[in-house]
């Protein structure tokens, strides 16, 4: 689905979300409508902090294990993402920092999906 992924590039390659100037809330993914203010809201796109802490996580073990974590960035917005480290390094509350990585591809002859993952802050 090339056009659909293409529209997301700006918000996946980097942590670009939305901010409501009316209520001061940050949202990721970016929203068309502020859920607090709806029509009264004034939503703009903005770049989010590079770091955050792990709220919770899981190691998905159906095939090759990978780590999915709910991360709270330093501006309060939360993002679901993968963390690149050994599962034994994961701890609730640990600090992580964004990293640009591959998320997969549409087959060997399809487009490559890049996006933001996280690595532990050392």
């Amino acid at each position: 689905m090339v056009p659909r992924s293409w529209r997301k590039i700006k918000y996946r390659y980097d942590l670009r979300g939305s901010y409501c100037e009316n209520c001061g809330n940050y949202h990721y993914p970016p929203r068309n409508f502020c859920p607090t203010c709806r029509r009264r809201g004034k939503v703009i796109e903005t770049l989010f902090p590079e770091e955050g802490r792990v709220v919770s996580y899981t190691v998905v073990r159906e095939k090759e294990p990978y780590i999915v974590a709910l991360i709270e960035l330093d501006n309060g917005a939360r993002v679901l993402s993968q963390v690149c480290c050994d599962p034994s390094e994961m701890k609730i509350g640990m600090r992580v920092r964004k990293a640009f990585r591959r998320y997969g591809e549409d087959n060997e002859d399809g487009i490559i999906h890049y996006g933001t993952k996280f690595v532990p802050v050392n």
Partner: protein
Amino acid sequence: MRRVAVVGVGQSKFGELWDKGFRDIVLEAGREALEDADLEGKEIEAIFVGNMSGGRYLGQEHIAALIADYAGLAEFGIPATRVEAADASGGLAVRQAYMAVASGMHDIVIAAGAEKVTDVGDPMEILSASVDIEWERFVGGNLPALYAIIARLHMETFGTTEEDLALISVKNHRNGALNPKAQFQRVIRVEDVLNSPYVAEPLKLLDCASVSDGAAAVILASEDVAREITDTPVFIEACTQASDYLALQSRKDILTMNSVVKAARESYKIAGVEPKDIQVAEIHDSFTIAEVLAYEDLGFAEKGEGAELIREGVTEIGGKIPVNPSGGLKACGHAVGATGVRQIVELTLQLRGEAGKRQVEAEKGLALNIGGTGATAVVSVLGR
């Protein structure tokens, strides 16, 4: 608003039904419901269908029309509607049917739920379309992963353990062994759950309900019509529905399903009951953690103390509030769109005293049907 009663119920066996197609299982459930209500079929004025994804599981859309056709009801041109809220589709169908009768629009309707998942390769993968595809699924957050994230935080915050979750699965399997229509008839032990392989840590294979084939149907009627049809009407005293943010990252607290809290609060108010008045419940245990969370969000336990109920046997058959006497999603099998309707079938049988070996003493029952990770919840309170 008129009072609405369940006058007939039916369901197919749930499981991997290789020999039966979608039409076969729907008709099996529908016929049983008509027989239960002793109706010919022409009395039905409208049909509401819960089916999550005929399109992806079968390549078939226009599901309600298909069912009306094969039920012999297209002959009368009745309105046939399919509703979808992931695995709360069944609950939605019941609620739509309830509203149709309560409002006076129709006198007798049927709510059916059906899903045929084994004709395609990966049933759980399609069920994972219930999450936010672009922002959760894209990063690898399928349905088990998201419930696992909730489970881990619940464990970290409240001290719930993997053993506690295993007890839920053990209870439901024990109950399922008493239910001839349940997919799994096997009693299991805590060690079996703990030794099963991890799907998404900390959730293991036996913490997760299987995605299965199955169909269920309930016939609803207004009170006056119901009393003509049956001596044992079971009334739907409340049927409420609520939503929550789709993606976990958009919710302020992932340990509370706001949709469940809201729908339950409204149902209790309408039915004039409190959580302690509920004597039997069918709760959406797509994952063991979901049942623990539901104990809290339905008000059976304080937030964080859900695990105590299972540890103390409160929710066993014979306990103070039996939960999932049918075996729940875990032992019956989770036939996605059929689950919410199956829950009403079970509660009706329980309240009529027709539940056989798994019978509990109850006059008030509650059903909780959840979509995905809780973006939709339907709560129904039933009473004699």
